[in-house]
């Protein structure tokens, strides 16, 4: 394979672990085996304990608005080790866990120690996304 093609494939493959479509907390709580289907066709399972934890930190009205997994967007343009969380409810959840004051807008920038904290708390309900073009 041509080395450019190989590299393009490598970049493209960085995100094959992502779901085709995210599912709401409301739907996942109703599933016997909560999961979403990934782009590569495999199933991605969520731990029930994490879903229950999330259901405790947001109101019941917000269950249908929180889409899982929460995406931790990594982009070299944001600076090494910096990630972005988008979405109102997603931002609320992450701010709550980090005990961070919420800024206005629907975006939240988090740094490596904070990402670690989030991943430790929500290992199955968060996923890394590698932003291929543009990050801001």
């Amino acid at each position, binding site marked *: 394979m041509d*080395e*450019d093609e190989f*590299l*393009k494939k*490598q*970049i493209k*493959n*960085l995100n*094959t*672990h992502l779901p085709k479509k995210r599912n709401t907390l409301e739907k996942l709580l109703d599933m016997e*085996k909560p*999961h979403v289907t*990934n782009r590569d066709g*495999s*199933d*991605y*399972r969520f*731990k*029930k304990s994490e879903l229950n934890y999330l259901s405790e930190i947001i109101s019941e009205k917000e269950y249908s608005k929180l889409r899982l997994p929460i995406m931790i967007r*990594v*982009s*070299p343009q944001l600076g*090494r*080790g910096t990630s972005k969380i988008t979405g109102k409810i997603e931002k609320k959840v992450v701010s709550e866990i980090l005990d961070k004051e919420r800024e206005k807008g629907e975006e939240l920038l988090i740094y*490596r120690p904070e*990402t*670690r904290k989030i*991943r*430790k708390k929500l290992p*199955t309900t968060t*996923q*890394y996304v*590698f932003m*291929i073009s543009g990050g801001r």
Partner: protein
Amino acid sequence: MTSGSENIQPTRGELLKLKKRIELAERGHELLQEKRDALVTEFFDHLDTLKEKREKVDEEMEEAFEDLIEAKVVSGNLSLEQIGDASKRDIDVDVDTRNIMGVRVPFMEVENVKREITERGYDLQETSPKVDEASEKFEEALQAILELAETEEIVKSLAREIEKTKRRVNSLEHVLIPRLEENKEYIEMRLEEQEREDKFRMKRVKQKIESQET
């Protein structure tokens, strides 16, 4: 991979193509570096969890065996075997996979390991409380062992992926990007040379025309 610049056409078109390739390689390098960093962080966090879980298993197993010995003293071997037979059951272990940045790792959810005292199937009036204590401790230990197995497998899978990603980052950083940069410099140098030659040629032609006119 070819090295050096023997096969390179020193044209502007080639230079443009090369610049695009460098841009792609640098973008790939940055993204793979981010992936490697994130994998390393995940690896160490899971390693810490593994340590904690291993300690927990050791502790719980020790306590469980201590209680078992005491239960043996009180109830006797034969009676304990009968109790064991009576309390046999299947455990629901839901085993699946999940994905951490493209790394397939096991997913395990265990239910009903810990039982209520009345669910164990033996006669409470005829057994010592030590048996209950030992049973409870073993159930806790079993839960911890299953969780430990999941984390252990995650750590191994992450370590393998870190190695692969490191190799890719290094090959981009130390082989591909320097070679492309070298080729770019070669073309730029040849183009500058051509430009100088053209200028010189033009000057000579101009001088010739001027001398012919005079």
